[in-house]
């Protein structure tokens, strides 16, 4: 089982590091031929506009869409934006997942933060997941076929309970960065989806 990490731009090395640590074979994906023989794909964090442009310019959009029809794909932050059907900005999107995403939903970098999340689908669900949000997007709304996996608790705020992780069949998104922490549970959850597929 080989997992690919889209390596056009962003923190792909951090994802690869976690995969290697879990004993999983993994490789960088920069061109359509690199998708052959992969069992799953991670779209890393980075700048979604940059990643989208490079994917368009190097003929990756259709191959990525075909790959995601049959295989598990997980997008973190910029990767989540790239997978979404709708954002409020003009940029190349794969447009596969029935979610609407708002970019930079929390503000600028000075508003970036860490927070504990409850994520019931992970192992040891009672143990909070320390999530890192960097100029993070929020999942504003989801379609009928989408399961919400995690919400951000902001008690006392009218925005309490915004969606930060979701799944639609083989597609998974998180607006935070499990690859920047030592907690490997989210990666193991994605790998379990790949094994089931």
């Amino acid at each position: 089982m080989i997992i690919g990490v889209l390596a056009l731009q962003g923190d792909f090395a951090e994802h690869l590091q976690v995969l290697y640590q879990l004993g999983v074979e993994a490789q960088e994906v920069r061109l359509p031929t690199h998708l052959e023989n992969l069992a799953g794909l991670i779209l890393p964090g980075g700048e979604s506009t940059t990643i989208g442009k490079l994917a368009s310019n190097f003929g990756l959009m259709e191959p990525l869409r075909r790959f995601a029809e049959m295989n598990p794909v997980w997008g973190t932050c910029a990767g989540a934006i790239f997978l979404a059907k709708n954002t409020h900005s003009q940029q190349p999107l794969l447009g596969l997942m029935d979610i609407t995403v708002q970019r930079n939903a929390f503000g600028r970098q000075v508003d970036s933060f860490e927070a504990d999340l409850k994520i019931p689908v992970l192992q040891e669900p009672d143990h909070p997941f320390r999530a890192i949000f960097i100029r993070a997007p929020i999942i504003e709304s989801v379609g009928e076929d989408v399961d919400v996996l995690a919400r951000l608790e902001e008690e006392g705020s009218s925005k309490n309970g915004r969606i930060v992780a979701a799944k639609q069949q083989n597609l998974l998104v998180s607006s935070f960065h499990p690859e920047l922490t030592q907690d490997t549970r989210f990666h193991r959850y994605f790998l379990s989806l790949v094994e089931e597929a």
Partner: protein
Amino acid sequence: MDKEIGTFAVKKGLAQMLKGGVIMDVVTPEHAETAEKAGAVAVMALERVPADIRAYGGVARMSDPGLIQEIMDTVTIPVMAKCRIGHFVEAQILEALGVDYIDESEVLTPADESHHINKHEFKVPFVCGCRDLGEALRRIGEGAAMIRTKGEAGSGDVVEAVRHARVVQGEIRRLTNLPDEELMAYAKGIGAPYELVKEVKELGQLPVVNFAAGGIATPSDAAMMMQLGMDGVFVGSGIFKSGDPPTRAKAMVAAVTHFNNPEILAEISKGLGEPMVGIGVTKIPESERLALRGW
């Protein structure tokens, strides 16, 4: 839910998101738009690119906050801005403005010839220049969450960027082979905090992201810096002092992604128009070398 802002993980994290990307110097909102369209991961908002700062002479200071604000309002990608070395009030102003990263930069005229800013006190992350491992670790010790090799800004000559990248990488390679009992003397020798020296030995790399900067003018320059082990590149004068900025900008972005693929590099290097003219570093008198600023 124990929400925390401004943690080191969050500061360093934004630099990690910029990896494999090009950060472009821009002096107008129109430049910023061109940079974003070309696929820049961030822009550095400035009144003058380094080549013009060099030509103009005089004291170079933080840019007009109004200009920085206009650029922030124009693009959705992160916006960085420069303050003078040691000028903590310029940094406070940039933080209040909401810039995404502050470059405490030798390109501007230093405000303090002994001390850099205590960057731990800020919520906004800082990037700082270095010429060697000791300088990099002193800056990280002061709180920098990202490092860039200095090169020689505004020269269009990549030789100093290469020198600084090779020095830093070479020192890390040697450090990883030192026995633990020699680390204290090594730390003393390079003027770096012991704890960070130990951390670099364990990691085999800097504990933060390290970009190349200073004199990068062509896609092949950018790809070479990536092959030398840098995480991404800053391009200052190299784009907007060239004949065809949009085309060159797009080629630089592609070169950083496909840095290991000479066929693609050959393709994207075609027909880019005139590169910036540049000035050979050996022709710049020592008193005008920007890289020598920083302590």
